[in-house]
């Protein structure tokens, strides 16, 4: 199943879902409750749940395939057509570590072998690998919830301080940041509303750290 973390609602996700024509449930999470309930901090993230309703792998990067831009020849052709600003972003995107081959191989192993798969974790390990939630991360969730609620209620300006608080309290949560940045600028570039933007924050951590390495 898929869940779109989109505060803008079904209309933001509709064209992607309709193009994919999925046979599986395709849901919308406007409040980003998956961040709070499962520890999602970036997309794509995957969670494995077994037949008994037990989580056997907590939220982790879940690229299903290598995007076409990841191929060097495609990337260079694309970059030639871009503005310098877009090219700078794309240069960092190309450095992001994704591991679709390893992830899908592990997933297939679990589908075949179930609880005997070495990729299916014990309950203790699932809990241990889920994100820590110190008070500031819990407060980030409460702040983002106020922000998304006010934004959806038509008070976009009043939502901004709460989104800013969420960013400050949990700076490694990219769903909180990218969601709010998108409302200010669909390209997630610099705006007066927020201190950071996609390129600035990726450069600050290093694009190779945008996703943690898979621990399979």
């Amino acid at each position, binding site marked *: 199943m898929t869940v779109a973390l989109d505060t803008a609602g079904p209309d933001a996700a509709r064209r992607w879902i309709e193009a994919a024509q999925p046979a599986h449930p395709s849901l919308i999470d406007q409040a980003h409750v998956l961040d709070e309930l499962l520890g999602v901090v970036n997309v794509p993230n995957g969670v494995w749940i077994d037949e008994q309703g037990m989580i056997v792998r907590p939220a982790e990067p879940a690229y299903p395939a290598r995007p076409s831009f990841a191929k060097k020849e495609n990337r260079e052709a694309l970059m030639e057509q871009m503005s310098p600003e877009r090219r700078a972003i794309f240069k960092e995107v190309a450095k992001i570590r994704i591991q679709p081959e390893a992830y899908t191989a592990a997933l297939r192993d679990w589908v075949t072998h179930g609880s005997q798969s070495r990729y299916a974790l014990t309950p203790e390990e*699932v809990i241990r690998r889920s994100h820590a939630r110190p008070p500031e991360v819990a407060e980030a969730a409460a702040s983002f919830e106020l922000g998304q609620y006010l934004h959806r209620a038509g008070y976009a300006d009043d939502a901004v301080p709460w989104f800013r608080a969420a960013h400050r309290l949990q700076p490694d949560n990219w769903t909180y940041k990218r969601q709010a940045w998108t409302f200010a600028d669909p390209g997630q570039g610099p705006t007066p509303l927020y201190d950071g933007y996609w390129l600035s924050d990726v450069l600050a951590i290093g694009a190779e750290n945008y996703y943690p390495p898979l621990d399979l």
Partner: protein
Amino acid sequence: MILKTLQVDLEVFAQRTGWVIKPEGACKADRCVPLPSTTEKLLDVRALAQRLGMPLLHDEKHDIWSLGPESGGRVLSSAVAPEIVLPDLDGTPFDLSSLRGQKILLVAWASW
């Protein structure tokens, strides 16, 4: 969870947070936190927030509160998948637990 008053319905609270109010207190997985005894269906959010380590934020202009999740541990206090009910494109609610008996790959994505 967003609140318009500082009284919360226990069933709504349990559905959203996973904390169930029992005679021994607020319980989630194998942990129970004692609460002032109550026979009411509504509880004071300030007491819950304090006992469970949940942030309670107030937006003064709109006079609404936001109660965050419990803090101090891990996001998952149990490997049991939490209750998740979300709408599809048409707004029809879908309950994750309706897939019980099947393996689930839940993929979070976004349009942005």
